[in-house]
């Protein structure tokens, strides 16, 4: 059985007078060790779907229908305690904005170690610190001991994103949801983060749901791709298939809007 099974997920907001559906009939399956890409224009519902999967959409003014089974747990109907025991343990999230997604007043070390503190209370603080530093060095952060006592604002965007990833990887999850982890970063750093994700996937066999609107990144990282438009999945399939033989107009448009650099043709 696959690690994650989402069927007919619908998300509806009620905070305006007319209810607003932002995700329709979302279907998704991810196997252990698989990297799945989710692309689509801004506002197409990528983040909403991902947050629903991570159990982070629990506001009064919205409803979710369908089913999300993660690792045998029904994420939509289980108790909050059950949900909490999964979040940060077997399922972790790396968010879109590394600049704002870290608590500005907590030290890096605390934030990386927080899920370990919450889910592995038996680990002593000293051990925890050791492990945190270890994880931090795994994501190629230099001088993790020094970083441990620093605050987010003292780090560059790339470093913060690594910290986010380290925090998500602190107790090796089965599924890592990465919501546009590179959008805010420089090209050179973007490439490094992609390498890092690949590395994690290979080393721990962690499944990754990679969300982006940068098609070139998706192409270089993912095994499978889903394309979303206005809350619906309009196309899905293996990366190669979708990029080389897009079925939908929309997908074609997306792919064609990547500025081309046609140097390859000329002799060099």
């Amino acid at each position: 059985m696959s690690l994650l099974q989402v069927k007919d997920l619908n998300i509806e907001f009620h905070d305006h007078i007319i209810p607003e559906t932002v995700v329709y009939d979302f279907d998704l399956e991810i196997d252990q060790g698989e990297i799945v890409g989710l692309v689509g224009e801004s506002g197409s519902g990528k983040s909403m779907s991902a947050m629903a999967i991570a159990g982070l959409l629990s506001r009064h003014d919205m409803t979710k229908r369908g089913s999300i089974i993660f690792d045998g747990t029904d994420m939509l109907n289980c108790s909050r305690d059950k949900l909490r025991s999964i979040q940060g343990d077997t399922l972790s999230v790396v968010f879109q904005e590394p600049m704002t997604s870290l608590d500005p007043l907590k030290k890096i070390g605390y934030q990386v170690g927080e899920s370990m503190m919450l889910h592995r209370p038996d680990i002593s603080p000293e051990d925890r610190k050791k492990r945190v530093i270890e994880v931090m060095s795994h994501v190629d952060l230099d001088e993790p001991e020094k970083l441990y006592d620093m605050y987010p604002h003292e780090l560059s965007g790339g470093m913060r994103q690594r910290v986010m990833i380290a925090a998500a990887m602190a107790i090796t999850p089965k599924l890592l949801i990465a919501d546009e982890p590179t959008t805010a970063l420089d090209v050179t750093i973007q490439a490094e983060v992609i390498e890092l994700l690949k590395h994690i996937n290979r080393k721990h066999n962690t499944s990754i749901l990679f969300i982006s609107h940068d098609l070139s990144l998706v192409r270089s990282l993912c095994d499978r791709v889903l394309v979303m438009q206005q809350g619906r999945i309009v196309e899905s399939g293996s990366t190669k298939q979708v990029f080389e033989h897009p079925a939908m107009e929309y997908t074609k448009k997306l792919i064609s809007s990547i500025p081309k650099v046609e140097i390859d043709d000329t002799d060099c």
Partner: protein
Amino acid sequence: MILTVKDLHVSYKNRKKNSLKYDEKEVLKGLEFSIDENEIVGLVGESGCGKSTLAKALLGLIKSKSGEINLNCKHPQMVFQDPYSSLNPKKRISFILEEPLKNLTDMTSEERRKKAEWILGEVGLDKEYLDRYPSELSGGQRQRVCIAQSMILGSDFLIMDEPVSALDVTIQAQVLELIRELKIKHKLSILFISHDLRVVYSLCDKVMILKDGLIVEQGDRDKIYRNPQHEYTKKLLKSAGITI
């Protein structure tokens, strides 16, 4: 030459923590380049390397420490990096567009209105947008308004500071198309700032690579993309996935 720059130094003065002294941080350390008429020059560099600083220094919005800037253009204009903060949220689009005309020409209000309608058409927006506030526009539309404002005086030199990086891929493509068109139609010279090598390639005639306050490489687009000399350029191209 519409612009020549010689040995430009720019620095920020800041009071650093735990110090009474001003801490001078030199961001640009001796730039030298020029821009021809009707030419788009791309300026590429990682975040924080001083691209926006250079743009503002060229237009005199921040003081440069030393060096020479020769700009043969009466009212050079700029499209700012962030379309959200570069439009006054309390003013209607019509006010924003007419502002340069009001301050720098003696057109009557009808003439100004006409001109605003016309320029809005040029950037592909309906004239009904004139009565809207910036908050009622999408990011792409705002960026068009910014471009429109920068062109309304008819100046022939523009600086565009990452005009597309805040935009969606599909809208990005539209805006780039617009810039191409405008350049041809109005014979503009543009300093185009971006960190996206792909975008730069698709638009510019010449490219400059900025690193650590210095231009490490500059020249014709194809020359640089095909045959990068500097290590940093190579790294940039590589991480952008542009393999040779």
